[in-house]
């Protein structure tokens, strides 16, 4: 008798993709608005996870200040809408651009740092952004209360009102992100990232422009986090410095690591564990920090490569043992 596993393997990749997409489209229909909101949040964090995965997973660089770029994207969108009456939809590209430019500016001087040092600088940067927002920098960020009163999102004359609308908006960008990161993974740049991650010096000796590769990882990852921030504002007309809290960066980092660094399905597993489950089961939310810590410790002991690792990174990690 053919096992279920073997049967599942016979489904062609396109079949999987179409099936999962259909599931993602149909899933919220029987649910109430609360669960639709949970799915929306899941989508936002999956996009954040996939963007951070470019930096942490592909290029192998530590980034523990990712939430700062999320906040930068959100504030950019909010400010443009509040002060210049730019329709929210048109602020999205600017949010991406602003976050990407900051990604460039912060990473350029610190790229030569390795591992833990890089990690410390990114934490510091995240805090600088948060504190700047709290202190009402340039008198425009509204201090600790943040900003509120942004317009509703209108796309092609359609005003997005319900959680369902916003879920589909995020789903659209999630699918776009997935297509993009898949293509990146298999591109020349994706190969350069893999070489840099595995042996930077050998990569350099073979003609890989390692500085450019690392810089691009930061710029692309940061810019895409900015988009996630803008999508947040599209639904929630309130932004506050809390978006850039250190714990937010930690959650994003855990999403990438828990599922399996460098693995696209891993990001979804991580989002499920770090965002979706705590939303559905309140006790996990109350005990969120303990749950996160416990899950990470358990994983590091039992499955250091993550719950759904990429084939390559599993080999890298298992080999070091």
């Amino acid at each position, binding site marked *: 008798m053919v096992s279920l596993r073997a049967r599942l393997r016979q489904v062609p990749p396109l079949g999987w993709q179409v099936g999962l997409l259909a599931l993602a489209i149909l899933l919220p229909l029987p649910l109430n608005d609360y669960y639709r909101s949970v799915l929306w949040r899941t989508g936002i964090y999956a996009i954040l996870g996939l963007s951070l995965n470019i930096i942490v997973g592909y290029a192998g660089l530590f980034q523990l200040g990712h939430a700062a770029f999320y906040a930068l994207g959100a504030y950019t969108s909010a400010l443009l809408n509040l002060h210049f009456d730019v329709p929210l939809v048109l602020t999205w590209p600017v949010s991406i651009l602003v976050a990407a430019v900051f990604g460039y500016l912060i990473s350029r001087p610190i790229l030569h740092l390795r591992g833990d040092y890089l990690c410390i600088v990114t934490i510091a940067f995240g805090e600088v952004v948060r504190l700047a927002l709290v202190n009402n920098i340039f008198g425009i960020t509204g201090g600790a209360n943040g900003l509120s009163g942004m317009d509703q999102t209108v796309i092609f004359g359609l005003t997005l009102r319900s959680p369902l609308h916003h879920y589909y908006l995020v789903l659209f960008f999630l699918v776009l992100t997935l297509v993009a990161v898949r293509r990146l993974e298999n591109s*020349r740049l994706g*190969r*350069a990232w893999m*070489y840099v991650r*595995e*042996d930077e*010096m*050998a*990569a*350099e*000796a*073979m*003609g*890989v*422009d*390692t*500085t450019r590769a690392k810089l691009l990882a930061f710029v692309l990852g940061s810019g895409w986090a900015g988009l996630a921030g803008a999508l947040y504002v599209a639904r929630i007309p309130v932004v506050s410095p809390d978006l850039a809290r250190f714990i937010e960066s930690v959650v994003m980092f855990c999403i990438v690591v828990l599922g399996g660094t460098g693995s696209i399905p891993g990001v979804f597993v991580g989002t499920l564990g770090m965002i979706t489950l705590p939303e559905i089961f309140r006790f996990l939310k109350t005990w969120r920090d303990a749950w996160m810590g416990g899950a990470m410790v358990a994983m590091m002991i039992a499955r250091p490569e993550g719950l759904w690792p990429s084939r*390559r990174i599993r*080999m*890298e990690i298992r*080999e070091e043992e």
Partner: protein
Amino acid sequence: MRVPLLRVENLHTYYGHVHALKGIDLEVEEGEIVTLIGANGAGKSTTLRTISGLVRPREGRIEFNGHVLNQMPAHKIVQLGICHVPEGRRIFTTLTVMENLMMGAYTLRDKGTIRENLRRVFDLFPRLAERKNQLGGTLSGGEQQMLTIGRALMSQPRLLLLDEPSLGLAPMLVRAIFETIREINARGTTILLVEQNARAALKIAHRAYVLETGRVVLAGPAQELMRDERVRKAYLGER
């Protein structure tokens, strides 16, 4: 007068405050095998690393085929036709032999050229062709060294910088590696070789430089240096 393929003048390199190279001068002519010999810490590897751009010189001049390399980033230097095989078989153990080789062709974009270079590498190392789908980590030490050299040849360099290719290999494999180096040279690649194994290096080299604490103390045709009293005593282990 013939212009050498590579000319290094008064090269000074520092690691922090450590003055590693104290004014190296050397030349490599097209088609030659030139070897740098010397004790640990003499600056042999640093010389290669400075030429290939992995570390920057503080003073001096490196000229290759009409280009000044001093402040050029490493990846640009590779594109000019210098490929550095760093010490200690840095292959990617989790990639297949084929994937490792393709990494060497990273700077090339033309598929035809890549195929042609691959054919040449397989011609030189039939063993790699047999094992092309195996993971790099499953190869023996000698095969891994072949893979490192093969990977470098994928970029079709005019000048190959080899750092201690015989390191950690069994005597029989050492002979095979040196034979291969000679063969690569015979097929048209100029080679600058750094070796602890001075005897074997001098045997295949045309010319040699002897380095001591960051300076060139002796230079000349390899055959002559083999007969030189000081070299015999200090590096060939004779009394």
